[in-house]
């Protein structure tokens, strides 16, 4: 029989937020249909490096394993993507795994993406319906609007679009494509549209839509194929209208 097939992987590790990162290399037995999550679980089962040193399991975040929860985003061979849909057979070896660079590392490949949630709140990217009495059903949505809104609603808050954006960095507080796309989604919704003005007001604030400089990486990196560039441009159009007309006549 032929020699047993193996998979070579190098992982950037970091034990705690304030500690220095370092690299470890692992050699694993190849399995059919292996993806990066399976690979990381195999390491957890037997956390021994290539040199035979016993180490700790590699921490990572994952949940759905089918590209709908967003948790498993990381840099795989230098590119931001979901680990659960990254098939080992399609990756060049040694496979390089690193945490996302635009979010604080919790441990190893596990990052804290809560900034995205904070920014969704900051940009009012939700529909406020809580109150002291039942509001009843909202207005019906025309099928044409549904069709436009549905793709926008598929965002899984993975953060890939922020990771690849040159405008998202430590010198800027740009909220990034995902959040602006949600602003567009909720402005499209007939109930959400009742707060369109406030939402646009927020999105013209610090870190808002004007910080986009059209590098258009977000749309290439999004695992859900969301038309992010179009969303940003549409929000820009609504914002400038509100700015000019609000200023002249408002």
């Amino acid at each position: 029989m032929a020699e047993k097939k193996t998979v070579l992987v190098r992982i950037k590790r970091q034990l705690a937020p304030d500690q220095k990162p370092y690299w470890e290399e692992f050699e694993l037995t190849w399995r059919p249909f292996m993806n990066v999550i399976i690979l990381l679980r195999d390491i957890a089962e037997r956390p021994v490096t290539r040199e035979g040193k016993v180490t700790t399991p590699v921490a990572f975040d994952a949940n759905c394993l089918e590209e709908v929860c967003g948790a498993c985003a990381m840099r795989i061979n230098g590119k931001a993507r979901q680990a659960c849909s990254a098939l080992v057979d399609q990756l060049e070896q040694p496979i390089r795994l690193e945490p996302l660079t635009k979010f604080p590392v919790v441990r190893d490949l596990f990052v804290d993406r809560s900034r995205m949630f904070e920014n969704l709140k900051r940009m009012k990217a939700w529909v406020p319906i809580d109150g002291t009495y039942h509001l009843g059903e909202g207005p019906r949505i025309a099928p044409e609007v549904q069709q436009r809104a549905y793709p926008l609603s598929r965002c899984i808050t993975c953060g890939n679009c922020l990771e690849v954006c040159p405008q998202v960095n430590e010198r800027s507080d740009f909220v990034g494509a995902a959040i602006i796309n949600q602003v567009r989604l909720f402005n499209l919704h007939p109930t959400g549209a009742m707060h369109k003005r406030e939402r646009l007001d927020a999105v013209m604030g610090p870190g808002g839509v004007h910080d986009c400089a059209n590098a258009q990486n977000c749309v290439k990196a999004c695992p859900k194929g969301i038309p992010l560039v179009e969303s940003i441009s549409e929000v820009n159009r609504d914002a400038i209208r509100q700015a000019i007309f609000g200023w002249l006549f408002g």
Partner: protein
Amino acid sequence: MTASGTSTSHREYFWRKLHSFTGIFPIGAFLAEHFWSNSYALVSVEKYNEVSRGLQTIPWRVPLEALLIWLPILFHGGYGVYLWWKGKSNVLDYPWMANWMYTLQRWTGLVAFVFIGWHVYTERFLTQGKSTYADVERALSDPLYFWLYIVGIVATSFHLGNGIWNFLCKWGIATSARAQRGAAWFGALVGVTFTAVGLAIVLGVRFDWKPFEFYTLPRQ
């Protein structure tokens, strides 16, 4: 500029939009005028000097220059350097077309800033605003100046062409992928045209090439 009376600061939004707008108007418009007037170098020396003299003797020249040219360029350039510093290109990790354009937009802006500063100093201030064809010819006979002009023209033309594409996307004028592709072609056309015209002028002066001189000849 508070659109709906809330406390959100829109100051940065305002400066960002002003920066974007000044790139087209008046700076882009002035660049078009500048290339147009200098194209008279391709007609004849006399015509060039006549047009230059005309521009040099308009009433309210200095306030107009200051308001329509110097101030906008100083603002766009100064704020542009700040924006250049604020962005962090990752084009080597993600070598996609629009990402290259993003990176080049920043670097050509910087090149344009240095070039324009030097160009205005030598051709506007050293000549006391009375520069002639002979001054330009003398400058371009120096190979260093000649190449500086080539670099300056290519960088600035690219910056304007790609900037127009950016502008159309960033003001929500071209929103869909299709419209943005159209806008990109339009921007490319502007960039290529400005490069071609600019280079023609420089080469025309450097090598005494006057393709439109026959305009000035008497009728046969």
